[in-house]
Each structure stands twice: as C-alpha cells, then as structure tokens.
C-alpha cells in the first residue's frame, strides 16, 4: 500500500524559499515551458510537486533521482500562477538528497573546490600567466580561512 506522509511538507517548509509548495493546484503551467520536461523522458515539475505534497519522496531523494535533471532555468517560477516556485522546491529536494549523500559527484566537487580554494574553478600559475598576457593583474587569493568558518 502506498504511504502518504503529509508531515514531509514541514521538512520542506523549513528550507529557504521552498515553503510555497502547498499552493500548487496541479495546473501544469510549469510543465509547458520546462526544457527538462521536453528533453527528458521522466522529468516533470508538476509530478514532483505532487510527490512533495503527499510526501511520496523516496524516489525523489534516492540516488539517480530525476530532480538533478532540472536546468534551473526558472521558467516554472515565471509561469506558475500560484507563486509555488517549483524550481526552489526542487532545489530544496536537492538539499535533502545531499544530506543523505545521494547527490551527483559534481555537487561534492564544487563544494570542496569552494571550501579549499574559495572558488569553484581552480586557479593555477598558468591562469596568472594568461591573465598577465591580457593585461590583467594576478587573481587574488580568496580569504579561505574566514570562508571556512561559515561553512
């Protein structure tokens, strides 16, 4: 028997800007302009919202979940007549999946890069040489020690 868990909403409510999910009336305006919906054989923001509201999120928070196919284009945010902000709900699900360590490697790589160097892209001596050739000063070293304290 499929279990519905309406308490899951409270978990999502606690995440920044994801708290409008229950305004969703399943109109599917978000699906019409969603590029991921068009190019994927499974991604569907309306369905994702329905699963969030009913708490049937086991698959959404599992490894290989479709939530990672979202392009973050914000079309759904623009189209939604109810201010649900589907993309922000999806990002909240990504936060929860990451807590369970069910995120793609790319997310870990980016987070580690920022933690170790203050940037997502590694700066090398070649970078400063190229910058010099273009007439630019060397890149500044970000204050990584300070950054780590708010990590």
């Amino acid at each position: 028997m499929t279990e519905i868990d309406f308490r899951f909403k409270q978990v999502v409510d606690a995440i920044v800007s994801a708290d409008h999910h229950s305004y969703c009336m399943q109109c599917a305006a978000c699906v019409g302009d969603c590029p991921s919906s068009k190019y994927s054989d499974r991604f569907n923001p309306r369905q994702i919202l329905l699963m969030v509201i009913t708490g049937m999120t086991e698959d959404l928070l599992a490894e290989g979940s479709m939530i990672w196919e979202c392009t973050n284009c914000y079309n759904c945010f623009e189209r939604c007549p109810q201010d649900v902000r589907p993309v922000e709900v999806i990002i909240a699900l990504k936060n929860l999946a990451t807590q369970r360590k069910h995120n793609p490697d790319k997310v870990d790589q980016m987070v580690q890069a920022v933690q170790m160097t203050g940037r997502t892209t590694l700066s090398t001596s070649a970078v400063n040489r190229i910058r010099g050739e273009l007439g630019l000063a060397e890149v500044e070293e970000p204050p990584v020690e300070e950054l780590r304290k708010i990590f």
Partner: protein
Amino acid sequence: MLADEGVCQRVDETDPLMANTMENLDSRVHGNNTAVTHKYIPFFGCMISVKYPQFEAAVRKTAPALGIEFVDVKGFTCCPDPIFFKASDKMRWLTIAARNLSLVEDLGLDIVTVCSGCTATLLEAHHLLENEELRAKVNERLKAIDRQYQGTAKVRHLCTVIRDDIGMDKVKESVKNPLEGLRVAIHYGCHLLKPSQVMKVDDPNHPTILEHLIEAVGAEPIEHNEKLLCCGKACMHDEMPKEMVRDIVQSILSMDVDCMGLICPTCFDEYDLGQMLLSRKYNKTFNLPVIYYFQLLGLAQGLSPHDVGLHRHKIKTDKILEKLGVVV
C-alpha cells in the same frame, strides 16, 4: 598592468584611510574631465576571473570609454554558485552570498556583476534577506567571522548599468569601428532575466536589452526560434544538455549568422568548448563562433582581437574578423 595605468583602483576595504581615498578619487577624476564618471565595485566571479579572463579583460578595457571606473575590493569569494553549490545547502549558499555583500556595505558604491550566475545569486540573496527572520539567522552565522549583513549593498549586471546609468548613446559614442554587417545571433541565457521579479532586468518573454546593446555597436542582432532556450549546463544528465545545445546551435545556423553573442560565461562554456564536444558526438562541424558581448564592444571601440582575448576561444573567430576587415 591596468592597475598601474590607473584604469582601475585596488582599494583595501579594511584600510581606515579608505574613506579619504574615495574622496580623493572623486576630485582626481573630475579634474579637467567634463565627462561624468560612474564608479562601481566589480564582481567578476570565479568562471570569468579564472577560466575566461578574456571576458574580464574585455570588460575592464571597454569600461573607461563608457565613463565607468572600477573600484576593486578585496576579499570576495565565489558568489557562491547558484547551481551546484546552492543544491548542496541553501542556508550555506545564502550566508556566503551575504558575506560577499557585507564587504561593500559601508563603501557607498554599487556592485556591478558580469556573470549571470553571480548576478542571480547576489540579487536573490539580497531579495531573500529582506525577510527579517532569515536575515537574523544569517547574521547569527556571520557573527563567527565578525561580520553583519545590513542589506544596503546594491547589485546590478553591467548590461543594466549601461542601459540605466550610462545610456546606450554613450555606448554608441564610444564606438570607433562600427561592426557593420555583422549578424549576431542572440542568446540571453536564463539567469540574467529570471526570476523577473528579483532580477528586474527586462521582460523575460520579450527581452530587448541585448538587441539594443548589439545595435549600439553597429552590428545586427538576429532572432531565432530558440533564442530563449536554456543552455542546459545545470542539468546533470549525460545527454540532455548536449541535445539542448544542438537544437540552439542548429536554430541559429538556420538563420545565416556570423556568430553567436551572449553575456554569460557558463553559456559560453556550453557553446564554445561544448561545441567541440557536440561536434564529436554528432560527427559534424558547426563552426559557429561564440562571442561575449563586451568582446564585441571592445572590437567596436578599436581594441584588437588579442586585447579582448579572441585567440583563447576554442571555436575560431577568424571569419568574423575577416568580415569586419580586422587585422589579427
């Protein structure tokens, strides 16, 4: 170096004499120059400063002719990235963004961004932190590094600053070699325009800002069916982003254009380096040069292709330069 030439200033925000320096800058700048100079704090972000420094070079070199003076501030980190980093933890993303904004709050100058991702993060953070409860939570975290976010820092993308503060006329005035006859396919990308209630740049369904900027340098902006389609970079899937890029590139090539013009370094990654990967996958050469707007502006202002770093592109821009009669 540009800093040595006085094109931009290195200002240490922890320097107690900084306020004094700002006043001195004012009088030096307005000396015998009747043109108004607009001062901004540039935020170049990771991708541009490290991976595509040619975009930073183009921006810094085209700014003076627009009456823009950059006042550099030390201590910025990644904005942080609104896709992968935000996906891991929203509160952490918001806190680090607030930290970046807090660095400039007492300086009385606006931040100007040149990467759509940075613009999205900083503008959205500013918007979210208007909520007192959320701001209090973030400031609680910022206490650990002796900083507080007050919400006074204003952020805009350079394109909006040009349209609203500098004026398109000033762009036209700065053009020495109009890029006549150059057909530039427009690509807006997603994050400059959306969510529109936060970004407040242009109508996301019928934007015109890029078209006006391209016309201002004498080139011809070309619309195409997939002008507003996402580049797909954020989509973590093996095939989907490539299919989106393929459709955009093919849509553009069906319009007989000379190049693709854009304002986002992440999109650039998808269409320049990405075009090479696309060629391998579909066994087809698309040969569509991709240019960042400020590189076009640079060429129009009389800078050389090398000055704006066109030699660093994976898809060669030779045929554009040939058409414009620019010597490499």
